[in-house]
Structures are given as C-alpha cells and as structure tokens.
C-alpha cells in the first residue's frame, strides 16, 4: 500500500494522512473519451478510493487515435467495461464503479450524490449544462475541461463560486460539429484536470478557481483568464 504510493508520499506536504484522504475520496468522471483516458488512469493510480465512470458508448476504431485507455481488441466493447478492466489491472487496491448510461436529467442527481468531486470529460455543452445544474443543486465541486483541434481549456468550479454558465454565458452559439482533435492535446488537458482533482482532494496548492486556463498547441502556449460570478447568471444568479 505504502510502497505503491512511495513517490507521492515523498512530495512536500504529502503525508500518510494525505494518502488516507485519497483512499476515502469518491470521484466521478463523466465521459471516458480523450480527456477521460488521461484523467481516469492518473486518479486510479494515485489511490482514489472510489472512481466512478459515466459512459454509455462503445469503443470505436476512430477513438483509438486519442483514447489511449483502450486497446484495438476493445473495439465494440462498452467503454465503461473496457475502462474498468484496464483500471482494475492498474490498481487493484481501489474501487472502480461503472455507470453504463448517459448522464440525463432523470439520473444525474442520483449518480452525482454518491461522489465528492466530479470531473467533466464530456464532449458536448448540453451535458455540461446538466452537470452545472446538478453540481449547483448538490453543491459539488467539479473540474471542467473541453478540447477541440489543437486547443483546450480547463477550470475548477467550487460551490459558492462562479458556475460554468457564468463563464459560458447564454444565447451562445451551439456546439460546432465534432472537429478534429490532436490526441495528446486531450491527454495534456486531461492531465491538468487530474492534477486539479488531486490538489482539490488533498488541499494542496491553489486551484484554477475563477481562472480559465487555455492551451494553444500551435503557438504553443498557455494563457489564463480570470472570470467572476455573474449576478444575472440564469443558472446560479439571483436574477
């Protein structure tokens, strides 16, 4: 148990109690695609006690260029099942729970209620709107990310702070059709999400709260933008 985590137990400020916090933590990862392929193995490897996966899709050949959680022999297999198998092999000391469903208004609250932290690895704005509403209602912290082509963005949303809708606004354009995506861009942004999750659960460092971190792989470069709670936000505002 201790040997597995020796290199993180060597971290500054990381004690055996920190590790016990992780062992008691319950994290839900919504979506097991490109972002999830980075988030899931890092969380499970770090010793999160319970990792939930919400995913109803099956592995497709076109996924494998970026969804490195899966093997060619997994094609046609439900992602939640293939991911669980892979993650259990990575760390048999923790629990993996698969929810083979889409997140929907009828099941979101019941699923999220069983977790302390939610990681947004979804691929559409409708799912994020639902995640936002549900996390607001249940006062759950969550880590938003999205990627497209050579670009990615990530931010951490805590109860009482600005919500995803404060950042995204309303009346915004609909999602564009699925675009190309460079595989490691999803891995990079997913790795930032996993880092934020581990920091949030262990109280380490400062979080990307009220800060949108943006990656442009073509430059390449990072940019950071602060944002505030919108008092007129239809999701969390008073008006």
């Amino acid at each position, binding site marked *: 148990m201790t040997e597995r985590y020796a290199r993180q137990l060597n971290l500054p400020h990381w004690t055996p109690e920190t590790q016990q916090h992780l062992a008691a933590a319950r994290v839900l990862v919504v979506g097991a695609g490109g972002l999830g392929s980075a988030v899931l193995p890092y969380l499970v490897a770090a010793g999160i006690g319970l990792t939930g996966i919400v995913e109803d899709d099956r592995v497709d050949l076109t996924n494998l260029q970026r969804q490195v959680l899966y093997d060619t022999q997994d094609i046609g297999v439900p992602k939640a099942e293939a991911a669980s198998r892979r993650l259990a092999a990575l760390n048999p000391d923790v629990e993996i729970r698969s929810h083979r469903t889409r997140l929907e208004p009828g099941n979101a609250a019941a699923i999220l209620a069983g977790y302390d932290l939610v990681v947004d690895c979804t691929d559409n*704005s409708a799912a994020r709107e639902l995640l936002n509403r549900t996390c607001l209602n249940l006062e759950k912290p969550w880590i938003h990310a999205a990627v497209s082509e050579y*670009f990615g963005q990530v931010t951490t949303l805590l109860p009482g702070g600005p919500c995803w809708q404060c950042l995204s606004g309303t009346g*915004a354009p609909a999602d*564009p059709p699925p675009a190309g995506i460079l595989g490691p861009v*999803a891995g990079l942004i997913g790795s930032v999400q996993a880092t934020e999750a581990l920091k949030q659960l262990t109280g380490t460092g400062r979080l990307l709260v009220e800060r*949108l971190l943006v990656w442009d792989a073509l430059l390449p470069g990072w940019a950071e*933008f602060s944002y505030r709670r919108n008092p007129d936000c239809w999701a969390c505002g008073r008006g």
Partner: protein
Amino acid sequence: MQVELQLFATLRKYAPDQPLDKGLVMNVEPPLTVSILLEKAGVPLDKVKIIMVNNRHAGFDQELAAGDRVAAFPPVAGG
C-alpha cells in the same frame, strides 16, 4: 485609439496576422464596443462563445477604452 484583440482556437483564422505571443493591435475610433471591434476584425459574432476584456468576462455590448485587451473564444466542446 488602440485596443488589442486576441482570438483563440478556431477563431485565429480571422486574424492570421495576430502575433503568436500577443493580440492583434487595432486602431479604432471611439465609441467602441466588443461587437463593433469583432465586426471590424471580420469575426462573425455567432462564432464567439466567450469574451474577456482585460482578462475578465465580458459581453458583446461592453464599451472599450484605449489600451483594452479583448480576447474571444469559440465554443470548445470536445472531450
């Protein structure tokens, strides 16, 4: 007056001359709003999801002053 416009992700194609490390410097007469600036830069407003002025969230109607830095993002939805 001078303002800076930074376009991100797929919006970069509307400002191919934007320096890699900072925004496109534009000379525009006041009164100026975010939407007027974007129109002058040839950016279709319906392609813009998030606007930041001086690193803070803003709307299309926000008035701009000399030296302001505007950043615009398209919807980024993939996962």
